[in-house]
């Protein structure tokens, strides 16, 4: 048990000792960061307006889903004429599922291709800057999917979170200078069986046909 006097001494000692905690090892890299800020602001400004307004993007996505759902509902109703009145409503729900499943499958396929290529290039001794851009693009899609009903499935959510982490790390690699970090990323991927999990999550056949066949 410590006395008040000891606590005061401890607090003083702690404040001094803690000055070394995460102390930046060099002066602020002002110009380096400013250049990146300007480049990133220019990049974001050049993006379509839709990308800058999440409410509009989600609104349009919802409208597109509605149109697609109606289309699929009509298509299903047309092909299942002997079914009862509940068919259209069920097809609307199925339609939403189809959309997200198609998007998720496309994304998983692209990510699998990308990560396989990344690992192969790394083994060949190349850490290329083009990986950063691709990783960032896939990262954006990952985050959109994480916020979508596609992530309602706990297994899919876990996989998406895992991929988000891997892609975020790859997007931060510096060409030619980050061989060790790149190795750590691939070790981490191997240890957590990211690619096998990713591959097993990709349906073997074209998703829309499989799903339609199931309804």
């Amino acid at each position, binding site marked *: 048990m410590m006395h008040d006097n000891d606590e005061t*001494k*401890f607090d003083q000692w702690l404040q001094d*000792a803690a000055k070394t905690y*995460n*102390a930046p090892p060099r002066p602020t890299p*002002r110009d380096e960061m400013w250049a990146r800020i300007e480049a990133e602001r220019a990049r*974001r400004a050049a993006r379509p307006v839709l990308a800058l307004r999440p409410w509009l993007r989600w609104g349009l996505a919802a409208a597109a889903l509605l149109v697609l759902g109606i289309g699929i509902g009509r298509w299903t109703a047309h092909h299942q004429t002997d079914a009862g009145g509940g068919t259209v409503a069920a097809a609307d729900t199925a339609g939403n599922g189809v959309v997200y499943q198609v998007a998720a499958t496309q994304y998983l396929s692209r990510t699998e291709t990308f990560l396989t290529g990344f690992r192969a290039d790394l083994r060949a001794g190349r850490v290329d800057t083009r990986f950063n851009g691709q990783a960032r693009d896939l990262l954006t899609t990952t985050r959109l999917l994480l916020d979508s009903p596609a992530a309602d499935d706990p297994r899919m959510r876990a996989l998406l979170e895992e991929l988000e982490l891997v892609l*975020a790390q790859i997007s931060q690699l510096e060409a030619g200078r980050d061989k060790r970090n790149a190795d750590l990323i691939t070790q981490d991927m191997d240890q957590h069986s990211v690619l096998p999990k990713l591959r097993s999550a990709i349906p073997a056949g074209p998703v829309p046909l499989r799903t339609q066949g199931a309804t």
Partner: protein
Amino acid sequence: MDEQDLINRVRAGDGIAERALYDAHVDRVYRLAYRLAGDDALAQDFTQETFIRAFAKLDTFRGDSALSTWLHAITTTVVLNGLRKVKRFHKREADLEAADGVSGGRREAEPDLKARLRQAIDALPHGYRTVFVMHDIEGFTHEEIGVALGVETGTSKAQLSRARAKLRESLADFAGEWVS
């Protein structure tokens, strides 16, 4: 130049004023980001994102608090959200290190006080660590911390007190260092 003039010029799209505003605040923003992240690449990313957001949202700055306080609020939001994203990665690294026997908890295995202090601070709950770093290391006042973290001043004080208590507990076997 007066800060309000600088802000007005930035709002008007003056690039030189943007750089001047950045130069005036970047050191403290970067240092805070570094102290919380403990990694240069992350600290740079967080600093970059802080200023991008600040320039984009400068029109919403009403001047109720100092610009620096407003900027530090953005910084802590960016850093804490960013750290949540990489937390799992760090946990894995720690697991790997523990499996390799790199980091031991016992004093015999880790005689370096600085390293033990670092471990103890790292092990604090996020809220405690943030307040401890901002107050005891970076010298922010409880009022500034309250604005930055969106909490009451009393909460900041309570968290600092609990952070210190936890550190006292974690570093009890080094008592001679400060009691003497």
